[in-house]
């Protein structure tokens, strides 16, 4: 789906965060946020605003900027600050038509609550885990939502709205170093409160989750023996032997329809 011309005048804001490599832990462009920026760039390349709240790691910010944006906005705040009230204040005055976020941050609590809190505070509708934004006509956007198992769902939503971008969205373009260094960062110091609740938490490196053991609850030796040696269980299945192929095929089709895999 190619966005039509009217979409070019859309105001889109992408929220970006400092990502983290899952193995080395090195700071990087967050996957989902980069996809959100990519989606924003295809929607409107001149009206896209990139927004970050926090201390703003220079190399990471520049790697987002290297995707081809002339500037970005940085709401400067300490590491322990709460981003939501700051964002709400800013977005109330600089309201975009579409606000794009990732589904989950790559570091910290990673609760995935941010888009929901913003949507609730701003009173906008929210569509989660989108893969694509299609045409935008008369203040209604056609959105493609990513479902589990590679499925997609079409959704229409009224502007302005918040959308969290799934990993199924188009891959972000490469970041070019030079343009990233030359682009401008608008610093704006803001006075946001600290995240008080979080200061009471204890953080530790992730422990390995214990694997669930298969507990054999058999009471007798005969049951235990059966549990240890049993082959493919079940046996309660229906078997159609004598029916004609047409009847058999109908039975299979009925099951497929009942399970909802054949529509």
């Amino acid at each position, binding site marked *: 789906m190619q966005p039509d011309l009217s979409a070019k005048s859309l105001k889109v804001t992408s929220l970006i965060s400092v990502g*983290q*490599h*899952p193995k080395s832990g090195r700071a990087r462009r967050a996957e989902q946020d980069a996809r959100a920026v990519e989606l924003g760039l295809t929607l409107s390349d001149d009206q896209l605003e990139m927004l970050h709240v926090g201390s703003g790691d220079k190399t990471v910010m520049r790697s987002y900027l290297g995707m081809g944006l002339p500037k970005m906005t940085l709401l400067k705040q300490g590491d322990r600050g709460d981003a939501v009230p700051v964002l709400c204040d800013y977005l109330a005055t600089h309201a975009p038509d579409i606000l794009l976020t990732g589904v*989950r941050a790559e*570091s910290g*609590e*990673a*609760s*995935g*609550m941010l888009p*929901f*809190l913003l*949507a*609730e505070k701003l009173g906008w*509708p929210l569509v989660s*885990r989108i893969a694509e934004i299609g045409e935008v006509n008369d203040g209604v956007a056609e959105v493609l939502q990513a*479902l*589990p*198992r*590679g*499925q*997609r*769902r079409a*959704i*229409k939503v009224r502007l302005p*709205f918040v959308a969290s971008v799934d990993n199924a969205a188009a891959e972000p373009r490469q970041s070019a170093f030079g343009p990233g260094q030359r682009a401008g960062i608008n610093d704006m110091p803001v006075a946001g409160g600290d995240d008080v*609740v979080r200061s*009471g*938490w204890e*953080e*530790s*490196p*992730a422990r390995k*989750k214990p694997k*669930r053991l298969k507990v054999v*609850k058999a009471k*007798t*030796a*005969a049951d235990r023996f059966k549990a240890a040696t049993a*082959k*493919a269980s*079940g046996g309660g*299945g*229906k*078997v*159609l*032997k004598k029916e004609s*192929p*047409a009847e*058999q*095929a*109908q*039975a*299979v*089709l009925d*099951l*497929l329809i009942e*399970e909802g*895999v*054949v529509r």
Partner: protein
Amino acid sequence: MSDLIRRDPRTEWIARNRLHPLHGEALFSTSGHPVGDVRGPSGLLRKNPHGVGFIGPNGIKRIDRLAIQLGESGPQGGQRRGAKAAVEVQLPLVTVESPDFYVVAVLDMVGGRLTGHDKDVLGQGHKLVAATEGKGAVVAVTFGDSKEEGFDKAGVDRLIQFRGEQYDGYSPEQRVTALEAVERELDPEYWLFPDSIAGGQELGCRLAARLGERPATQAWQVDAFTSLCRGGSQRIDISRETPRLLLLGEECADQIDETRHEAVVIELASVPASLSRIEDCGAVDVDPSQVPLGEAEFILSAGNGIHDWDQFHQAAETLRATEGASRVAVDDGFMPRHRQVGATGTWVTARVYVAVGISGAIQHMQGIGQCDKVVAINSDAGCDMVKRADLSVIGDSQQILAELIRLVESRQQGGAEDAA
């Protein structure tokens, strides 16, 4: 009669000889106790091993510890096996009358059935009930039509089902409104959601934002005081106080499997309709061959019993199924390697798996262990795949597939005419 105790050597002798036909009676008259459990001199309950069991047909003593055939047909070898299979153990029923508080679990119900994750969440619910003072009930909330019959065995004390077209498809706004109604009516002690991509995470976050709660997310070790939550990129654990609203990770707690629960349906007074700014335009057709095998929902899998490969591909296309194959089909060059299902191929998670001409070797079965419904199309009624399958049709794969293609095509044409 004199008070002298007289021994009866003959009875004693019979009591020692367990093969004697009068052994049971002799044992009773010498010990003076009924056969079986005997109160010993110190007051302990003693089992008399000579008193239990029966003599099998070949003269060997047998003890049936399953205690199934007590009072039943008796020790006839052939009949007993059938009797054993028929008896299903009735789990003890747990009832909660007028509970003091509720723990509400909102379930994913993928395809209308409880997922493993849902059952973990219900198990966690019971853990929290046990750790809290007073009598509590675990309430399950489901949306849309359900095909589940095992609510009672999964630990559901109370059940709230929201049905109707306003809850179909993608309807998060209406669902949150419904959950708010639950909040007003039951005032739950805890709200539990599966932290899953099947909808639980979204709904939990929405409700948390609406109620102004700060949820514990990806929580994987929860008790009444502290919760251990996984942080970003799975790299940190956060230990925090247990909040009222929790989004639980997979395998957070043991599932309920030793008790039955009432699963009493609760009707809510009324749920207001919410203003919907999101319209669901339905599922979009995705090319099933583009879906990775491990993720596919519906797989049509081919084995050595397929002789017409063009027909098989056509069947997969008409059914809109992702193609899979057994190792033989791959080794013989009919299917690419990345389509192989099984121990050395892909472990699939399909909800529906149709195995055409696959015998069900153990290496193949390992790969389909997580599948919900298995359909076997095979010419051999005795093969292992038929034993595993929920529905098996015995016949020639070529004929059955041809019929299936014909049926689906006529159905699609019928549907198209209806729509026109």
